[in-house]
């Protein structure tokens, strides 16, 4: 069906009122014909019959599409200009909405151009009705959305890049965290050893640390601690602390001496208006004929828990040890512990330098001991599994890093 373009969409020049004015610019504006405005408007105009046949199309849109007027008017339907996805969208959404409401706007579509390329557009359509209320044609306004799509693509690209950056940073933080923790604990002959580390958040490098390593003469050094603060500054102290403890232990493994060395190093490094410090338990384990002996010192750290072979649980209280690095002449305290087969010792951090001074404390040391008393007798592996289970039950309540280190002498592992 071929049909000449109607004049529905063109106004008449001679109907435009011409107020008397001597402003040449205003006069020029009035000379602008509605026909010219229609044809060369900065947007595309399209009129279609109710069956979709293109009845009228302006020069701007023809230019965008690269078609001749005669190729389209009376020959093609609006949907022929759409991509496959656009046609489906037209059938399922646009046509029904037009039928129901007589108008639809803000549609993001792609038009197929004569050369096969695609033109992203924003489309608004209105149904024109005759005097008797019957739908006569659909008037469609089409805006070039290339700038907008480019902007959206740019937004998307920027967002994807930000996502990649965030992943990279998280990966770096996790990797750094791993370097701050021992990749794998040393195997101590005749002992069960277990450890656990839970960072409070994926993108923050935490300040908990632990290690277990061989010393001269068949003895073993171990430590577990928590540095003040969070993030990169805490990570720097954690690193310094770990290597200082290892180096000091190699030179003189006496626990109090090791903590004094660490105190001196940290205090020199962070003296001034920004004190940095840590709490740490450091111990030396010496295998004996009937078990092992542990010499241990504390720098303001929560006491280690001893789970005895008979099921009892007790803290290894070491009164008087001050935190490490904050005071130039800090005092450290030590003690000796004997372990027999079936005994387990557990070192832990639990948001220890975080304390709610009012309101409910998440769980205090007494509650932890009560819990551990229900766990023993056990092994290092069993104790760590039990406490991590407890932590999981706290779930969202755990807002600080948590580290655990446990050593046990399994029953029936008497040494030769």
């Amino acid at each position, binding site marked *: 069906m071929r049909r000449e373009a109607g004049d529905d969409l063109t106004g008449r020049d001679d109907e435009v009122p011409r107020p008397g004015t001597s402003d040449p610019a205003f006069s020029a504006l009035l000379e602008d014909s509605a026909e010219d405005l229609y044809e060369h408007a900065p947007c595309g105009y399209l009129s279609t019959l109710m069956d979709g046949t293109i009845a009228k199309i302006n020069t701007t849109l023809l230019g965008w599409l690269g078609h001749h007027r005669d190729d389209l008017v009376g020959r093609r339907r609006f949907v022929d200009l759409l991509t496959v996805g656009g046609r489906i969208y037209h059938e399922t959404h646009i046509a029904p909405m037009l039928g129901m409401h007589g108008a639809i706007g803000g549609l993001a579509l792609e038009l197929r151009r004569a050369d096969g390329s695609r033109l992203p557009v924003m489309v608004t359509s209105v149904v024109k009705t005759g005097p008797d209320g019957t739908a006569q044609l659909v008037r469609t306004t089409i805006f070039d959305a290339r700038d907008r799509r480019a902007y959206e693509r740019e937004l998307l690209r920027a967002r994807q890049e930000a996502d990649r950056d965030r992943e990279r940073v998280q990966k770096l933080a996790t990797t750094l965290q791993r370097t701050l923790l021992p990749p794998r604990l040393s195997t101590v002959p005749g002992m069960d050893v277990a450890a656990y580390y839970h960072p409070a958040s994926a993108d923050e490098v935490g300040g908990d640390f632990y290690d277990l390593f061989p010393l001269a003469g068949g003895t073993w050094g171990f430590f577990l601690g928590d540095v003040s603060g969070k993030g990169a500054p805490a990570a720097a102290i954690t690193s310094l602390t770990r290597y200082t403890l290892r180096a000091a232990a190699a030179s003189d493994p006496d626990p109090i001496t090791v903590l004094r060395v660490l105190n001196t190093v940290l205090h020199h490094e962070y003296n001034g208006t920004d004190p940095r410090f840590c709490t740490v338990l450091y111990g030396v384990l010496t295998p004996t004929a009937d078990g092992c002996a542990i010499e241990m010192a504390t720098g303001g750290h929560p006491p280690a828990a001893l789970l005895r072979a008979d099921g009892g649980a007790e803290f290894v209280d070491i009164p008087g040890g001050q935190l490490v690095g904050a005071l130039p002449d800090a005092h450290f305290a030590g003690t000796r512990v004997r372990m027999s087969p079936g005994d387990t010792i557990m070192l832990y951090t639990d948001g220890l330098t975080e304390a709610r*001074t009012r309101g409910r404390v998440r769980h205090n040391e007494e509650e932890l001991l009560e819990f551990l008393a229900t766990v023993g007798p056990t092994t290092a592996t069993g104790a760590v599994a039990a406490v991590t289970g407890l932590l999981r039950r706290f779930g969202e309540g755990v807002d600080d890093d948590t580290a655990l280190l446990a050593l046990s002498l399994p029953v029936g592992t008497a040494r030769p």
Partner: protein
Amino acid sequence: MTDHLTVTTRPITGGTVLEFAGRLDAVTSPGALRTIGGLALHRGQRLVLDLTRLDFCDSSGISVLITARSTALAAEAALALVAVPRGLRGMLARTGLDAVFPIYPTLARLEESWVPRP
């Protein structure tokens, strides 16, 4: 519970009282440290930290207390803590800091024991 910290400074005989109200944590510590850094302490004076209305104190807060002590010592002044909340008291005891901070239950008790230096 507030999410911020208010530090009120007021003079007392022979020194200054800093009253901490709210949370002393990683967010609020820098401001508290600036206040302490801006104090004009003189030899023989006393710096009193009133913690009656302190709701929360973490390791950053401990840093603030330690810095206050260092600042006072550097000026040859004295530092005292007043009304230390129970949880913080426990943390100071465990970290051995109760040995380096003179602690008083109330400002009145502090005043009773205050002997101005000649």
